[in-house]
């Protein structure tokens, strides 16, 4: 039989990303800019993808990412370790700040404690043949997920980030990442099933 808890490869509480220290001493501003271009700028697409999925429109995603990149540049000295999760944490925070001000309904807090779900014996195996759903429907369904669930799904599936990195970006424990991810997938499956009435006839 299996051990009681999930044996994950990572510790359960990731270390915070910020360190309070400036960059290498005697670094000229040109060197700093070059280092920024090499290590942070290559993640611009990931930053934009996350912001675009969270804000759901190009214009605001562009503004947010531009501001966040500048912010990242100013705090570049505090970067320790990998640039991608560090940058995405900055972008993500900017997006949630924007959402709270402009789309408060999107950020309604869900109780993560209730997010666990049962293995889905109640939906027939064919009902969730997601590969048969078209692109448009899938995009729309992801777009309807509440922001904190959409976020973990995008980071996991489109950026291929580990639970540990996602936990750092969203600033939550790994267990919360797991429950949000499983709940996001469940909600997505339900939305897709509902938007495809012909598949609701499948019998258990």
């Amino acid at each position, binding site marked *: 039989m*299996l051990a009681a808890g999930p044996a*994950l490869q990572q510790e359960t509480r990731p270390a915070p990303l910020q360190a309070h220290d400036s960059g290498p001493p005697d670094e000229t501003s040109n060197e700093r800019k070059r280092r920024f271009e090499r290590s942070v700028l290559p993640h611009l697409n990931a930053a934009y993808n996350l912001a675009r999925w969270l804000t759901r429109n190009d214009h605001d995603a562009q503004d947010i990412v531009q501001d966040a990149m*500048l912010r990242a540049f100013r705090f570049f000295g505090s970067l320790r370790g990998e640039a991608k999760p560090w940058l995405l944490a900055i972008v993500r925070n900017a997006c949630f700040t924007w959402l709270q001000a402009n789309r408060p309904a999107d950020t309604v807090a869900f109780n993560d404690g209730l997010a*666990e779900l049962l*293995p*889905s014996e109640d939906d027939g195996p064919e009902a969730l043949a997601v*590969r048969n759903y078209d692109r448009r429907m899938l995009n729309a369904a992801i777009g309807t997920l509440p922001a904190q669930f959409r976020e973990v799904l995008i980071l996991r599936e489109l950026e291929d980030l580990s639970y540990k990195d996602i936990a750092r970006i969203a600033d939550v424990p790994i267990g919360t990442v797991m429950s949000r991810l499983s709940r996001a*997938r469940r909600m997505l499956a339900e939305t897709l099933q509902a938007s495809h009435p012909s598949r609701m006839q499948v019998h258990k």
Partner: protein
Amino acid sequence: MTNEEANRLLHAHIDGELDAATALEFEAYLAEDPTARRACQRLRQMSDAIREKADYHAAPAWLAARVRAATAAEPGSAGALRSWRAWLAPAGVAVADWLRPAASFAAVALVTWVVALGTMRPGDEEHIAHEVLASHVRSMLANRSYDVASSDQHTVKPWLSARLAFSPPVTDLSTSGFELVGGRLDYVGDQPVAVLVYKRRQHLIDVFVWPVVAPKPDQTLTHDGFNIEHFAKNGMDYWLVSDLGRDELNGLAQLIAEYSAGP
């Protein structure tokens, strides 16, 4: 095992987050439980479908340029001053006060030169070569080589034509070892241009195309480890940029010239 535990393990399993021992145990459990097996399969299908079909929103081309411009405008004067001094006094001697006006003069001269560079008329080959190279490097740095990703010339061509005042010839040359991977738009020589992106082994090749404004001689350049090839054919200017070897890049130029001369 409770349902809740099984569910957590199931997701961790498909996400590759279980350690080797637990993954083995979990697979043994799946082998015995058809319901869990089906759930696992469905989750995998969903994960695959999202990865395959969900939109990946790449940053628009100009955003990287704008971010670069914004960081360049950031105050970093302490550092900048230090580098100026280092340049003026390589031996580490502090810049004497009397030298400071000279430094300002040098700065003004530099600014004037940069402005002059920026306002140069299109048609200056070196300027164009510099612009296409910069565009190529920028796209590689930002990891965003194309706006439309397709190996199908019938997808890339209409995409570009719909966004430009001209219709660039697009040919897939994969049978000759140059796979068409996509296209993007850029702004070179004061006009929007088409960029076709080809791949050979691990090298990306940008092919810039626009209607000839003023005829320029064919040429081959090398700069910073990049090769640049220019020719004109059937009223179109072509600039090829890549870190690919010179001979191979020239080979691609010849193929493109050959095909664009076709029907």
